[in-house]
């Protein structure tokens, strides 16, 4: 079976996508309209108090470089743009669905977002906020497997644990695809912009990304570094290998790595602030 066929089978098995708050659907429709204003979007998100609190907390975190300066949602929309807000609202909602047992994944996602922000800013890449948002969502496929295909998830965890194999290998064995493939499908279903879809799809396989390679490379590297720093290691705590291609593409060999790692070490303190 090809990857596409596997995904189709999985899509059929998933009765319904994890239910997202109605706000997310409205938001998706809204940001596609050319006449929408930041105020409209702000109003919509603010109508859900729990959600808007989470969004504000996230946009005030250091990976958006605005720590502690944003006091309203419409302000956040103006500063960060629709793509980022959509991603933040999605991650705030999706991780809410997540059960306590996945707390490690939430921390890992936050850690990867923080590290992506630090690396993007260090390299002077454009739109570090979007890169961080993509990083926040990079393992979204794992959430779907856990929530909607829980028997398969248990099986994957067992295989990875008993045989000491990488989580991703176990996924391929059980599902025929990995969480990146599933996350990719899910993010297309949700109508995310390609700037977010690409890093979600290719974070394990940056060499195959058809474009946006620098963003994909940042998330690929940040994912590995989050494991290296021990932020939210799941059932498979090992550090994934970084491809030479991504490492060189971003010019990492030319950086003062010790200084970068120190910055990351300090920035990661913030994960604590967002624990579920």
């Amino acid at each position, binding site marked *: 079976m090809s990857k596409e066929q596997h995904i189709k089978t999985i899509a059929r098995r998933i009765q319904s996508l994890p239910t997202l708050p109605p706000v997310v659907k409205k938001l998706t429709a809204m940001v596609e309209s050319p006449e929408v204003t930041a105020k409209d979007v702000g109003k919509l998100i603010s109508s859900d108090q729990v959600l808007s609190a989470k969004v504000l907390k996230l946009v005030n975190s250091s990976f958006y470089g605005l720590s502690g300066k944003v006091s309203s949602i419409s302000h956040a929309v103006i500063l960060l743009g629709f793509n980022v807000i959509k991603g933040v609202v999605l991650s705030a909602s999706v991780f809410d669905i997540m059960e306590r047992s996945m707390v490690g994944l939430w921390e890992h996602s936050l850690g990867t977002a923080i590290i992506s922000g630090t690396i993007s800013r260090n390299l002077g890449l454009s739109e570090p906020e979007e890169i961080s948002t993509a990083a926040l969502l990079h393992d979204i496929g794992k959430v779907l497997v856990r929530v909607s295909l829980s028997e398969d998830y248990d099986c994957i965890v067992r295989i990875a644990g008993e045989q000491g194999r990488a989580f991703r290998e176990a996924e391929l064995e059980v599902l025929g695809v990995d969480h990146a493939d599933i996350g990719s499908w899910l993010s297309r279903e949700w109508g995310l912009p390609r700037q977010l879809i690409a890093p979600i799809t290719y974070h394990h396989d940056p060499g195959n990304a058809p474009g946006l390679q620098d963003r994909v490379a940042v998330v690929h590297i940040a994912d590995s570094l989050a*494991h290296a720093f021990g932020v939210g290691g799941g059932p498979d705590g090992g550090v994934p290998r970084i491809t030479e291609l991504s490492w060189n593409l971003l010019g990492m060999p030319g950086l003062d*790595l010790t200084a970068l790692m120190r910055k*990351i070490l300090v920035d990661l303190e913030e994960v604590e602030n967002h624990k579920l």
Partner: protein
Amino acid sequence: MQRVPINLVEPGMVLAKPVVNDAGMPLCAEGTELTAVLIDRLKRMNISQLILKGHPVEMGGPAKSPEEQIREMTARFARVQGDPIMDTIREAIEKAILVESMEQQDEPAEQEGPAKADGVQGEPGE
């Protein structure tokens, strides 16, 4: 940088990270020097802990020693050992942990600036 329960915070200590309440609303900017009035106000707003610059409070708790942190970190790299890029990263993180812990001991309220790792050599156990 140190995370400190608010009842151990004293005037004069400096915030390393902004204080944000449960509703996500920023209350105090990073770099703010805390006063008795401010600490009291934060307590009344149910803020339970603050992230402070330096390492102003000796808590003796479960804080891991840099050697311990490095040992755990190295273990996580077991599967990729020998890969030149991954080895470089591991060494850089090891240095970062050492520099960071030394700085916390020597200069408690030092500003976080770019790292100067040049002077750091000879990690323990080498």
